[in-house]
């Protein structure tokens, strides 16, 4: 439909089209009743079902979460993990707070303490007495992992962190050091 400019109207209107003209062309469905009506009711449904029946032989692909879990990619950024040295068992984290400085969500809290040489917690002079991440604020950007000079904190693969209580989402050092109860399956190369 071609819009006709309301050029010969004498009284000026901000709307430059004639009142009885549609500005946009509207696709109208067929009027109800008759053959066109029946087509309207079932035609498109059948078109969709064609695809359904066409693929039914492939079997179900639904993943039965939470009994089953989607494997994640190796670089997936899930819940953080703190690490220990494998040989000595000392914590890698020295409590330097660089992760806290890097965190854009300001959700890491580190309170450092001095190591007792007799009873070391970490390898350096200091260790993290308190290490907390408030996962309800974390945006999983991974900056903390990048900032850490000792690879003490890395983004793990767990993504199941929902809880009933906000304060339960503050993960302490012990929780972050512990192995996750359930391992999230990892997608292998090329999968």
């Amino acid at each position, binding site marked *: 439909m071609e819009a006709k400019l309301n050029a010969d109207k004498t009284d000026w209107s901000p709307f430059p089209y004639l009142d009885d003209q549609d500005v946009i062309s509207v696709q109208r469905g067929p009027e109800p009743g008759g053959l066109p009506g029946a087509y309207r009711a079932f035609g498109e449904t059948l078109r969709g079902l064609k695809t359904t029946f066409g693929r039914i032989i492939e079997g179900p692909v639904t993943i039965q979460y939470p009994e089953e879990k989607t494997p994640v990619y190796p670089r997936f950024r899930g819940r953080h993990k703190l690490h220990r040295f494998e040989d000595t068992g000392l914590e890698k984290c*020295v*409590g*330097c*707070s*660089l992760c*806290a*400085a890097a965190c854009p969500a300001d959700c890491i809290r*580190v*309170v*450092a*303490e*001095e190591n007792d040489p007799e009873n070391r917690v970490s390898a*350096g*002079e*200091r260790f993290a007495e308190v290490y907390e991440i408030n996962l309800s604020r974390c945006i999983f950007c991974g900056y903390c992992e990048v900032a850490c*000079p*000792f690879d003490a904190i890395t983004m793990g693969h767990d993504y199941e962190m929902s809880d009933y209580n906000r304060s339960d989402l503050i993960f302490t050092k012990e929780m972050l050091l512990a192995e996750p109860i359930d391992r999230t399956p990892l997608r292998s190369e090329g999968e």
Partner: protein
Amino acid sequence: MSQPIRNAVTLNIDGREVTAPEGTMLVDAAKHGDIEIPVFCYEPKLGEPVGACRMCLVEIEGIPKLQTACSTPIRDGMTVYTQTDRVKGAQNAVVEFLLINHPLDCPVCDKGGECPLQDIAMGWGPGKSRFTDPKRHFQKPLPLSPLVAIDRERCILCYRCVRFSQEISEDEQLVLHERGDRSFVGTFDDRPYIAPFHGNITELCPVGALTSYTYRFRARPWDIEDAGSVCTLCPSQCNVKFTVRDERALRVLARDNEDVDDGWLCDKGRYSFQMLASEERITEPMVRAGDGTLAPVSWEEAISKVAAGLRDAGTASAVLAGGGTSNEEGWLLQRLLREGLSSPNIDSSASGARADLVRELSSPALGSRMRELDYADAILVLDTEPLNEMPILDLRIRKAVRRTGAQLLVASEHPSSLDGGAAEAVRFAPGEAAELIGALAAALGAPGYEDDGPHAEKAKAIAELLRTGPDPVIVWGERLFRTPGAVEALLACAKALGIDKRLGPGLLEVPESANGRGLREVGCLPGAGPGLAPTQTGAAASGIRDGMVNGEIKALLLSEADPVRTHPGSEAWRKALASTFVVSIAMFDDPSTAYANVVLPAESHAEKEGTVTHPDGRLQRVRPNVPRPGQIRPTCQVLTDLAATLGQTWDLPDQPAVLAAMTDDVDFYAGISDETIGGQGVRWQELASGRSWGPAVGGRTDNQGDPPPASAGSGLLLGTYRDLWASEVTERNPALRFLKRGQMLEIAPKDAETMGLENGDGVRVSVNGTSVEARVAIRTRMEAGVGFLAEGLAENNGNALVNGAGTRIEVEKTAPAAEFEAAGMGQKATVLSLEGEAAAR
């Protein structure tokens, strides 16, 4: 010598016209043009630059080699380049060299995040090192003192700490051992670095080589907030900032103010933040029950109890305001007392300062600014030991002597740590201040004074040196008020010197309490109301005590005051407090609070909002930095509520309102507001209201106690002095506890010989049956016939024996020094235990 006039010099730095006063170093001049030249060793607070680190190299037209900008004064027409390839090459090289032996353990280093070496390596460094050999190694971290850890690997040998120790605090303990890359900082004898200002080196060190044990690993710069306040632990009123993390003060840093502290702090101020969050603090109002225990009550109940007690006493009430009390609180206290209870008995110190003399001494013409010390020709220190009573003043005086060659004169009862640098140091016996100053007045030609006494010779020598230049400054201790006639003589000296006719130089009083000057000016002085206006005379501290004993005074309100500990006559005070209704506004359960019927919690200088007045008349703001713990309420509010309960409606809802009302009331504070005070404070003498100061009229309001009893008996004359560490602060802060000291009887070698005493012997010192235990310390720079005890100790307080001037003591040997040595309490043992303390860190 007066403040030199410095002309403006114009030079060209990196193509920018820069104008700065002559004598400025290039580094500082560059800042006028917004150009930054990196530095490590340069710190103007430390005096002359040394050019040790070479970080500040710049190219100057006409000079073939690169020059250190920190030690090159500017010249007119100089052309300087800081960005050329040559300069960049040199900067890269210096950083690369510095990092060769630097461990780069930033993640575990306490300085990380606020480290000049990090910043400069980032901004001016080459980015990588070509050095692949092993680095130099030291054992680390080691205790340099019980409070400071040293990491020698991180040291970049900038000499700042050594210069501080050698040239600022002049304790001369820190030196640089060895040569070349083996150099390391340590004390000359490898003992712990124990000195009253040593905490400053942790702030000076541009790397993490010197760190405080109290702040070690507590927080990073991004975890903290900084807020400024004023330290009210002594009259220095240093400008401080608290490092606050999670609403707790973790560190105290200097907030440089050349007019007050010159950028230094004493260790008492620096390490006393621990007591703020102490478990021992009183955090709720308490009332003493019948069985003598304190039970917490609601504020309303406490206030009504206080009001009832005060109302009962009526005109027989009294107030003692202590050093931590702010001007506002002092003003409210005196108003509460004078208006609410029609009682005139209020005092703020133990000296018995006379209102008429205070009025005369407060004249702007007589007073001296702190800064004036830097330009003084001669400095006379009269019966005060700045190190103990106003520590920062000690550094300021040393600076004047060292940098501008001021003549230092010391006249005191007790040997002074300034004696060493003094051109003339004289001793006089306790109670003889008036004679000595009188002789000085005579030597200076003041009318009405004659010099024929035993002090004439010494006085002449001092007078002569005082006249070396036109600008003398006399630093005197409020203690002089304790000797009748001494302050009058001092005024005569000042007039004879023409001090009142010249702007600038003058008298600087060292008050006995932190806000001593402010409290008097707002009216906490018997016989002087707000603005020192003459009012009805009341009892001074000693009068209040005696009045309490004999029943004339029935109620006492203590505001952050602990007379049992700090005032003469501890036993009499105990008796007085035990026999009356006592209300104590206190932070801790101190010896006086132990007698209080009602205890109200006090705010600390990190929580309070208010103003204080520096001994030179500078009003400064105390700001809240951390939340008030527990139930603590602002004292201003408590006093207003109390007044309301007593039927006084003041309509002073908060501190700003009180400040406004107070400045209205105190003539010479007129026009002072939070804005005029600002971050640096303002001297009222320099405002319009102060300049119009007229000698306030008002008769002599004599509130001096009884004349001192004539010295009788044959024993040693008792002298007392205040010790920096003999205070509650030392005991309430774990970090400072190792400095807690025992009582010592200081005597001259001659007396020791006649009495058969040796250094370290245990003695019992008694006066009229009261006695204290002490250890003998023989001091060579003392007059014979006098024995000195320290005031303010928790046990064996020297104040217990003081009983007016001219007290004589009996000394009885209780145990020989060897016995103490054997019991591990000897001098050697003390040093060892300190080392042990340090090593235990």
